[in-house]
């Protein structure tokens, strides 16, 4: 009797948990779609910036900017770690943090290097607290739809520090979105900015600069002059890239949560099956038992 009751109780709680995980899965799916739409929209901007840089390069202008220059000695490093504010998203945060900590240890091993660790997301903050590391900056304002204005403020500060020489290298540890089936934690160096001209070269292959491929050189007029435009576009490219890191992280978080919750729901389904079988057996055993008692009692009376 007690056994069947206990099973019913567990069955009920498993069913409740299944309801919750299933709902979370659906919510994550909806949020993922929204976040991905935003990421796709943002890609248009980055692509256009690449095109303009390619045009500048094609016009014979040399691509040089303080943000692109490798500093002679790296003594001030910043590592920005992008994690999520919420948990229940599988290996999302641990993957990013593992990568980030490996990089941090690598930097710590070098002598005479100052490290600023900045972290976004409550999960990362509490992890560092547990490791007894105090981050220089903490951000919690980035949810599943990071706003460009917020990223812009942070990027502005990095650009300023880099130009003043207070920052020699900026690494960002985040979950990169490759496709909806694949995301990977990476540590990327954003400052000094690299691959700007090469990235532009890529876009000329399929973007609007395509006519160049068939020998039609477009002769652009630069207003006020190419150098001025370059001065402005390099920081813009950096901001766009940093913003993309935040967007990728947001999209990957939702995918990770979706997958984790799908797994949890499936597990719950399996448990419900097992438990209901056990319950049925226990109930049947109890009925059989009672029947035997009744029959036994009746036989004793005769």
């Amino acid at each position, binding site marked *: 009797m007690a056994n069947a009751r206990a099973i019913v109780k567990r069955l009920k709680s498993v069913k409740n948990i299944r309801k919750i995980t299933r709902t979370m899965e659906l919510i994550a799916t909806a949020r993922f779609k929204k976040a991905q739409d935003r990421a796709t929209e943002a890609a248009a901007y980055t692509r256009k*910036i690449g095109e303009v840089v390619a045009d500048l390069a094609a016009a014979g202008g040399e691509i040089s900017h303080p943000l692109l220059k490798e500093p002679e000695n790296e003594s001030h490093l910043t590592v920005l770690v992008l994690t999520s504010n919420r948990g229940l998203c599988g290996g999302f945060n641990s993957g990013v943090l593992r990568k980030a900590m490996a990089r941090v240890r690598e930097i710590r091993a070098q002598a005479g290097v100052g490290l600023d660790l900045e972290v976004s997301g409550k999960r990362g903050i509490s992890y560092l607290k547990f490791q007894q590391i105090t981050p220089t900056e903490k951000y919690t304002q980035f949810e599943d739809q990071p706003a*460009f204005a917020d990223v812009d403020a942070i990027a502005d500060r990095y650009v300023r520090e880099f130009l003043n020489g207070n920052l020699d290298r900026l690494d960002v540890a985040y979950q990169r979105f490759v496709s909806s089936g694949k995301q990977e934690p990476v540590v990327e160096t954003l400052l000094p900015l690299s691959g700007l001209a090469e990235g532009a070269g890529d876009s000329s292959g399929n973007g609007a600069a395509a006519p160049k491929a068939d020998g039609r050189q477009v002769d652009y007029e630069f*207003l006020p002059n190419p150098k001025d435009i370059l001065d*402005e576009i390099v920081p813009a490219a950096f901001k766009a890239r940093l913003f993309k890191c935040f967007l990728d992280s947001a999209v990957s978080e939702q995918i990770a949560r979706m997958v984790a919750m799908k797994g949890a729901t499936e597990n719950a389904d399996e448990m419900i099956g097992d438990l209901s079988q056990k319950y049925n057996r226990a109930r049947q055993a109890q009925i059989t038992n009672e029947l035997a008692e009744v029959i036994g009692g009746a036989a004793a009376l005769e």
Partner: protein
Amino acid sequence: MPLTLSLVTPEKTLLTGAVDEVKLPLADGMAGILPGRAPMVARLGYGRLTVRGLKDASNVDGGEQTWFVAGGFVQVSPSKPGDEVSGGTVSVLTNRAMPPSEIDVVAAKAELSEVSSRVPSTPEARTLQSRDQDRLRAMIASAA
């Protein structure tokens, strides 16, 4: 012969469509772009971007429409063979763009007085301050 305009911010593409004319603020003054303009890449200033002849979903001419743009770039590229419209493509890349009706004048004024009360200690801070002032003044002036 209309031209194609796309107004792009890092967050989203606000507008893509065929228009008859675009007026926009460059770093050193206003500029107008008509179909068939020579290819150009230019830095934007702060101010109103006005388009004429933008058609909405039901193909009704919307007359003049304006947005406030806060810096960025504009690229005018010639049309490619096979493009739908032949007047070229204007791509406006800006950090922020909004219709004048969405500008919060009160907040912008408050920010302007805050920025103006800053005492810059370095030449860079001075540049930054005057840039912020220019942006906010243009924003207030552009408000509907």
